[in-house]
């Protein structure tokens, strides 16, 4: 009798085994097998919400006082600031190189996992939107990496110029190999173009990519490639959906305001954050010539900048408020990009119209005198001046220096550090910043020559 009991017990135990063994071991863990879990992964803003920021830190909108340089900057920050040539980025996946590639990995996991989820009439909108977000973030990240770690795009030489590794699957056993610059930009464009028909037009928060965001980013990327026709068309498409500008008169500031704008302001189309790791908002000071170039009635003087006890100005005008610097696309950038493209196409009046539409919102009510120009070339020159003044700390300046120098602008960023003089001559090989040494060592890919 007792033996029988025992046999039955063991038998029941065996039957219940397989079911027990399939149970989920941790309720806070999951595998990306459902649309909601993939979406939650793409919403992991700590990762996917941030971009790298060394491009702006390498540009010429700010300076750092010697005391700050000596006392507060880390070795890595000093390396970036002084355009150092070796090990200027931390050897970690959370660095300038690793962060955007991490974003790409999240996108690749999302795209791969989506393959196992059938598209049905019920889920097609969500399915497409998630695929679009993943493609958008992947393309955007490739662009940001290329912008910092590859030389500027020039159609004439891009086949022979080193681009960046284009990782399109999450399989980390695949070796990282640098593609050509042509292939790199082809991938960037194709990812973003593929995302356009998939993304939603309106999203719950600019932290999520949307159709106008994809148009806007494509406009910026084509501008960086000096394809001004395409840049204008994409700016048109974006502005057709989102064109609202803030009137800065309605945004009050006081001497102690630390952050002027809200992170859900109406100009914000796509909010990507850049952590303050490279430019320390509290310790970096705005280039004095740049500050002096604003008119006394220009509200940006107070909305963007704040006087510090040392007599210099720091920045407080992030469209992401206190969450970080704003690396994404906003309507003001699109107006000014379109203005530039129009001027280059010889359409002086249309160009100035876009420029004045924007600037009137930046001046004290009733004080703005619309800008005029003798010809398209004059308009272009004025637009480029205004572009720099509008897009401070918006992660476009480095890109602008690179592309404009290819056209002979001769912009030379300079630094004075502890009595020593540094400069970054136009079209220097240093415009492709050195890739972290351990990545080079582990992957065997070629390093960017620094001279």
């Amino acid at each position, binding site marked *: 009798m*007792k033996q029988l009991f*025992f046999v039955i*017990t*063991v038998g029941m135990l*065996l039957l219940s*085994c397989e079911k*027990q*063994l*399939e*149970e989920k*071991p*941790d309720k*806070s*863990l999951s*595998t*990306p097998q459902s649309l*909601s*879990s993939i979406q*939650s992964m793409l*919403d*992991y*803003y*700590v990762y996917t*919400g941030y971009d790298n920021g060394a491009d702006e830190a390498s540009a010429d909108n700010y300076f750092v006082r*010697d*005391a*700050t*340089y*000596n*006392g*507060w900057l*880390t*070795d890595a920050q000093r390396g970036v600031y002084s355009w150092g040539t070796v*090990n200027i980025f931390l050897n970690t*996946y959370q660095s300038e190189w690793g962060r955007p590639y*991490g974003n790409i*990995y999240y996108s690749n*996991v999302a795209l791969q996992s989506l393959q196992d989820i059938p598209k049905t009439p019920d889920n097609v909108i969500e399915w497409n939107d998630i695929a679009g977000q993943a493609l958008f973030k992947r393309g955007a990240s490739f662009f940001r990496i290329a912008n910092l770690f590859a030389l500027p795009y020039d159609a004439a030489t891009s086949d022979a110029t080193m681009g960046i*590794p284009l*990782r399109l699957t*999450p*399989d*980390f056993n695949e070796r990282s190999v640098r593609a050509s610059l042509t292939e790199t930009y082809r991938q960037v464009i194709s990812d973003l173009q593929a995302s356009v028909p998939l993304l939603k037009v309106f999203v719950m928060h*600019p*932290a999520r990519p949307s159709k106008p965001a994809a148009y806007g980013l494509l406009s910026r990327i084509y501008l960086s490639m000096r394809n001004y026709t395409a840049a204008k068309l994409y700016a048109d498409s974006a502005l057709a959906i989102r064109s609202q500008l803030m009137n800065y008169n309605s945004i009050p500031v006081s001497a102690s305001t*630390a*952050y002027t704008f809200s992170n859900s302001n109406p100009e914000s189309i796509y*909010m990507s954050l850049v952590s303050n790791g490279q430019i320390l908002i*509290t310790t970096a000071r705005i280039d004095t010539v740049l500050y002096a170039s604003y008119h006394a009635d220009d509200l940006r003087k107070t909305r963007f900048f704040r006087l*510090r006890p*040392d007599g210099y100005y*720091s920045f407080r005008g992030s469209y992401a*408020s*206190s*969450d970080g610097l704003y690396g994404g696309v906003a309507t003001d950038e699109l107006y000014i990009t379109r203005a530039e493209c129009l001027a280059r196409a010889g359409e002086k009046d249309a160009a100035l119209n876009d420029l004045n539409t924007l600037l009137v919102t930046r001046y004290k009510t009733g004080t703005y005198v619309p800008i005029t120009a003798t010809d398209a070339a004059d308009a272009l020159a004025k637009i480029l001046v205004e572009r720099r003044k509008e897009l401070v700390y918006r992660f476009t300046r480095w890109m602008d220096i690179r592309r404009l120098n290819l056209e002979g602008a001769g912009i030379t960023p300079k630094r004075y550090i502890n009595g020593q003089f540094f400069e970054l001559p136009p079209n220097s090989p240093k415009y492709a910043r050195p890739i972290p040494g*351990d*990545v080079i*060592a*582990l*992957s065997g890919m070629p390093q960017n020559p620094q001279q």
Partner: protein
Amino acid sequence: MKKIFVFYSLLLLYAGNAAAQTTLFKGRVTGVSGNVSVQTTTNPGSQVQAIGGNFSIPVAATDTLIIIAPGYQPMRIAIDVSIPQPLVIDMTAAAKALEEVIVNTGYQKIAKERATGSFTTVDNKLLNQQVGTTVLSRLESITNGLYVDRQTSGLGQPRFIIRGLSTINGPASPLIVLDDFPYEGDLNNINPNDVESITVLKDAAAASIWGTRAGNGVIVITTKRGRYNQPMRTEFTSNMSIADKPKLRSISNISSGDFIGVEKFLYDNGYYQAQLTGSPWKAVSPVIELLNLRDQGKISAAEADNRIHALAANNLTDEYMNYVYEKGVNLQQAISLSGGTKNMQWIIGGGWDHNADQLSAKYDRYNFKTAQTFKLTSRLDLNTSIDYTQSRSAAGKRGISFSTNTGSLPVYTRLKDDNGNALPVNIDYLQSYADSAGEGKLLDWSYYPLTDADNIEDVVKEQAILANLALTYKPMKGLSLSAQYQYGRQVTTGSRLAGEGSYEARNYINKFSELDSDGNIQYNLPRGGIFSSSNATLETQNFRGQVNYSRRWAAHEVNVLAGGEWRTRQYNTGSQFTVGYNPDLLGPMPALDYVHPYPNFLTGAGEYLPGGGSFGATVNNYVSFFSNAAYTFRRKYTISASARRDASNLFGATRNNRWTPLWSAGLAWDISNEYFYKLNWLPRLKIRTTYGISGNADPARAAVTTLRLQAPSPFTQQPSSQIVQFENKSLGWERVAMTNLAVDFASRNDRISGSVEYYHKKATNLFGYAQVDYTSVPIDGLTKNVATITGRGVDIDLQTRNITGKVSWSSQLNINFNKDKVKKYYLFDKTSSAFVGGSAQVSAIEGSPVYGLYTYQWGGLDPLNGDPQGYLGGVLSKDYNELAGTGTKLEELHYSGPTLPTSTWSMGNTVSYKRLSVTVRITGKFGHYFQRPSINYSQLYKSRTGHADFANRWQNPGDELYTQVPSMRYPIDEARSYFYANSSILATKADHIRLQYITLQYQLNKVQCYINANNLGLLWKANSFGIDPEYNNTYPAATNIAVGIKAIF
């Protein structure tokens, strides 16, 4: 023992009444020397002497022989005339019957004599030479083959290692088994007074029955039980132990005067300028604040000088010693009653511990235990037990290790003024700045190190129950079927109230305050305390069905067991966080806006209100099948084998290995039982060998992409998840194969007894943290099954009885040698900086130990300016970025040796005279190295972490002749600091000998009084820097003195 003897004798007398017809029976006694006599139960009067082991005696047709040897328990053997004669009778087992060691594997209890595997047993007599609240803390110095690792466990708890490392990155702790089932609850809940014995399963044959969790060895704890036919027995223990104040001064720190000099130097160089102008609200040290006030013209230079001068007289360590730390006092009482009748055995007991540590943290524990076994029928036993523990721990004061966002407290900080009032320090924000910005309307924004803890009530309560139910049915002789069930539940609830007076609450309230246009303070966060609560429930259930067959024929002995078990473990957690809590006015809490950021009062940066909660749940299910068999022939030859298969519901990794079998086999040969064995001086000699494979499963590793839910995105307010495991299809279990070769021996009268064991283990498939190209995956390194290590060692266990008689002296010696070596490690990264970094750094270079001390070759100080120098390609260099970066090749690093000892020694000597006995335990660790701390200028500037070496730094040319401490430099040069901190000049030998404990016991009738002094410090150390290598950079365990009594009625 004496009672059992009497009981047996009575039984024999009773049996003796059945007298009958007699014949002559011949036999031979082996395994014992000296005078052996033989008698029968039918005729107890007719005793014969065995001459040279041979005897012949008249017996009845069925009879029982009783063999009596001096110093041995009588042995009874049932005979009848049909048995072939002469019968060989092996007395070895009988001899051991006097002190037979039973080892408990958790699945069976076997006599150590007949085991092939390697076990260390610690009985409660040895365990009770020390006093303490927890069981495991007593094992360190007395357990053969067990090492407590404080070197490589980093800042975490010391970890237990059995017979050296079996893993590099997998879980390294042995499995703890309590009363037959794996114990996953709080180890502090086990009352040491309830423990009967502890068995450590060291080799594969002993441990592999535990399968995938046995790779690191197993510690089996068995609690006390009653006995059949035992009159009631009461055991009572009471003790008090006092722990000294910690030896704070053993960490050498920079002097106050020197540190003030450093701060002035930094200030003059403008180090603080960016902060003082950019973020004037940020806390700075008092000296910097005074210098700044002086430069702003708010105080005179003379006043600043005077006030700074006054600070130089303070010493933070003294302040902590005098005002914060006290002596710790632990009280422990335990009582147990046990007994048994013919059909029942029982025990009931309880314990109470009350501890107050050196920082006034309180711990109270109540244990209650009851266990019974009933013989329901002659064939069916029922066993039940319940253990209940309740504990409460309350956090105490904050110790000297307290550090703020801006670093440690300056060494010249005073905690108390001359009137006895607690003094404030600024840790996040500057009080003077906040006062002017807030027009004096903010709450005090200072932190009071001395009294802050008074405003915080941080209590953790735990209730745990462990219930066992077992039925054993014996349908026929030798066969038993058992079904065991264990239910465990542990509920831990934490509650922490940081009252409004605490810094934490004031800081939050101030941060989220706003000054409106009328100059009134608006609180965005309600006034009151911050209350957080947490709860965790651990529930385990085990069910085991097992068949045992154990039978002995004349020359054969068989022990077989087989069974299956199912185990489930559920762990649920939850936490809550509430602001504006008023313990006297409870009710619904106001709804707060967690979605929008509020500006920080001083910095203006948007910050989100603290709040919310978090919940978690894990479920682990395991199914296993196991079997173990042993066969002994003529009590001389034993073979054994075991096998086990495991499966679980863990993601990925284990799925790949589901049902992988693990096995072991063993052989033992008792040479001293052979006919030809003639060594009279060594009556006992046995050799045994085993080989087997066990596993090491890590629930934290998975082979599929795994997401973990994180806090919702503050922007979309949607759930967000992080990828915590990256798809890694080839990941599997670690496997540990071990070979064991051992000799057990005992000289005549056990004057010298013990064992020598040699083992070799090979751990394959080890998780290796291989650096990866983070272009391909967002992590710096990934776990792969890439490494292989081997370990070999010798465990020597010696017991000697040096003097017997009125004064007796016995010794117990454990010597453990162990060396591990990395055979294979998949290393992408050959960057030398990945191999330096002190003791906790896995160096894992093929051919070297897992943990080795690698340093940069030291090239002395530059005679011109005192810069440290190293070598790049054999040439003196000061290019620190290259030296500490990619410039130094792996081969150029200096290798000192392993950071874990290659041999550990422990010797206990007990001298007894009449009722008094004294035990002295000395331990030693040899063959390892550690990196000595010195002044690190980066840390000194950035976080105020100083070192006394500062005083010996190079200051003027010529200093390099007598010092190796680099000069102070500004600006901060991280690479220079890193190079020096990891240079060979600081590599130091760690060998040392320690006086672990002295115990004095006095037996007064049934009462034993004892005094135990523990952690008595070092007797010898190889280094000349005054550092206890076990406690490098931390405070040595404080000396502990306990007095107590133990009574048994």
